[in-house]
């Protein structure tokens, strides 16, 4: 156990399609949690309209008033010009830092204001990172498929003052597509999707033909069924690990944040936290990517901890 000074916890953008009331309730709860940074915005599908721009800004202001650092996250996959228009609006918001989740956003931010480079930006080596730093990047989130060894390699060449963040809890975002798989499962085309993903606040489970829970559809995004957990890293954070990100889930996100916070503070043993976290990972844990293995693997039977 360690009382890690300086390690911050962040909450990633909501990946799923939830009704407006659920989103408002969710962020009211988040205000009171010990999470340090909150990423806000629709990053998966621009058709989802539970929140309009002003709703995001209102929530952002409330969270900021509650002492959180707020970052606005952009869409990961852009297809239509209207989507580019919205990304531009976020990039020019003038108040909140922006997390760029594709190169369009980087282009709109470069040289104008500092920004966060999201996990889907493909920052695989220090030269790429340095180039983006020269354009205004001040924090990066490592691509989820990279390992602890790669992270350490980055730290050896890390430009001064650049923060490193890791995806540390949640279903892994594995792929994006033009096709909406939730709509496909309902035999609907994306253009007439009836917003069916709103019926799956925790995504739509895909299993193999021998009933192994394998992937989760979330509209045009495909996630891992297993919950990726780096909770064990809280015991003894590796050098350069500044921020650990927790990805929202429809229930118990505040409990996950509290447990991460307690491990971070040394107030709870990792074994005790492990038992408490287990019910919040419905299809089990994985951390293979971090250990240079297949992403679906788990380094331990003890619930990834």
């Amino acid at each position, binding site marked *: 156990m360690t009382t890690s000074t300086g390690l911050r916890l962040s909450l990633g953008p909501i990946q799923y399609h939830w009704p407006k009331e659920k989103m408002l309730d969710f962020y009211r709860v988040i205000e009171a949690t010990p999470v340090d940074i909150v990423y806000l915005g629709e990053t998966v599908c621009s058709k989802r309209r539970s929140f309009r721009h002003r709703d995001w800004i209102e929530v952002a202001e409330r969270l900021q008033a509650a002492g959180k650092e707020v970052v606005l996250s952009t869409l990961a996959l852009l*297809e239509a010009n209207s989507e580019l228009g919205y990304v531009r609006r976020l990039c020019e918001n003038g108040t909140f830092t922006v997390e760029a989740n594709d190169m369009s956003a980087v282009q709109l931010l470069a040289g104008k204001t500092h920004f966060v480079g999201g996990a889907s930006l*493909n920052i695989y*080596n220090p030269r790429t990172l340095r180039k983006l730093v020269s354009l205004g990047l001040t924090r990066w989130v490592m691509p989820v498929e990279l390992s602890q060894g790669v992270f350490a390699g980055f730290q050896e060449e890390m430009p001064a003052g650049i923060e490193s963040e890791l995806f540390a809890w949640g279903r*892994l975002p594995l792929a994006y597509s033009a096709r909406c798989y939730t709509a496909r499962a309902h035999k609907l085309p994306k253009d007439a999707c009836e917003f069916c993903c709103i019926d799956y606040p925790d995504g739509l489970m*895909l*299993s193999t033909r021998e009933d192994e829970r394998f992937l989760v559809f979330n509209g045009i995004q495909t996630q891992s069924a297993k919950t990726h957990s780096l909770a064990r890293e809280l015991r003894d954070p590796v050098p350069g690990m500044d921020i650990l990100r927790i990805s929202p889930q429809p229930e118990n996100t505040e409990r996950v944040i509290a447990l991460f916070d307690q491990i971070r503070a040394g107030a709870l043993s990792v074994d005790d936290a492990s038992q408490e976290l287990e019910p919040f990972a419905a299809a089990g844990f994985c951390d293979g990517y971090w250990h240079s293995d297949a992403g679906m693997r788990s380094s331990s039977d003890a619930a990834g901890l």
Partner: protein
Amino acid sequence: MELVCPAGNLASLKAAVDNGADAVYIGFKNETNARHFAGLNFDDRQITQGLAYARDRATRVYVAINTYPQPGNFATWERAVDQAAEYGVDALILADIGVMDYAAEKWPELRLHLSVQGSATSHEAVRFYSERFDIKRAVIPRVLSVQQVAALVDNSPVPIEVFGFGSLCVMVEGRCYLSSYVTGQGPNTFGACSPASFVRWSEVDSQLETRLNGVLIDRVDKDENAGYPTICKGRFKVNRETGYAIEEPTSLNTLPILPELLKIGVAAIKVEGRQRSPAYVAKVTRVLRAAINACLDDPENFVPDQSWLSQLTSLSEGVQTTLGAYQREWQ
């Protein structure tokens, strides 16, 4: 409209050149390109011969260096860039920002194309690479409808190359981790999707099972055709229904929309398939050449010849083709 064809080895390169490719694209024998398969790609001698063969027949040669180096191995990609530059190839097809930064700095005269693995889907993303690295062309992921491609072409600072035929990635290229999630090796990190070393075929109760690193991808009757266990073409259960939840085994074929692609100003049509045989490359190149010629001659009245379509279909995954994301209904 340029026809860009795949060459996984010297025989395929010759097949593409002989059958009417305007350009061929190749890769080195290592993890610096996205078809890092055993027995594939070019060594020193082969690349020298291939270049001479293509040059003599006025065909351009592009080299794909389109995977992502990591801390500690960046030098391998630098060497690949230097080698290709020293050979005097016509263009490099790059994905990684760091590699592009290196190439633009070290070889300012060398023509750079943005690889599909660079995942640029908007004109602002293309502009990023154009302004920073002076790329001369962008190959775009198979996620845009024809209307969206048209809008991108209109606003892009550089010409756009699109996929015209071949195996279909249904996920945005350069950002798909399905293979690495299951095997630890994927397109970005290893240069291959669903590497063969993780594939197991086994007979169970008169059925054939295909597994990728232990995960059951499909199970077929023995008289059925079992496809290669790419995760996105497997059969799975969703909401208690079993089927091709992501996509069926199928290949992309754009012959029916060739006049539209021409009209909206697409600069080049790319054929996927460096892992395919020389015979495959020859047939596909021949059909695409004939179709593009016919389309250029008389775009208004262009109708794909039935024999072209049946030839392409017979060469396709699952013996069927699709327009993929070009057609909104597919999405």
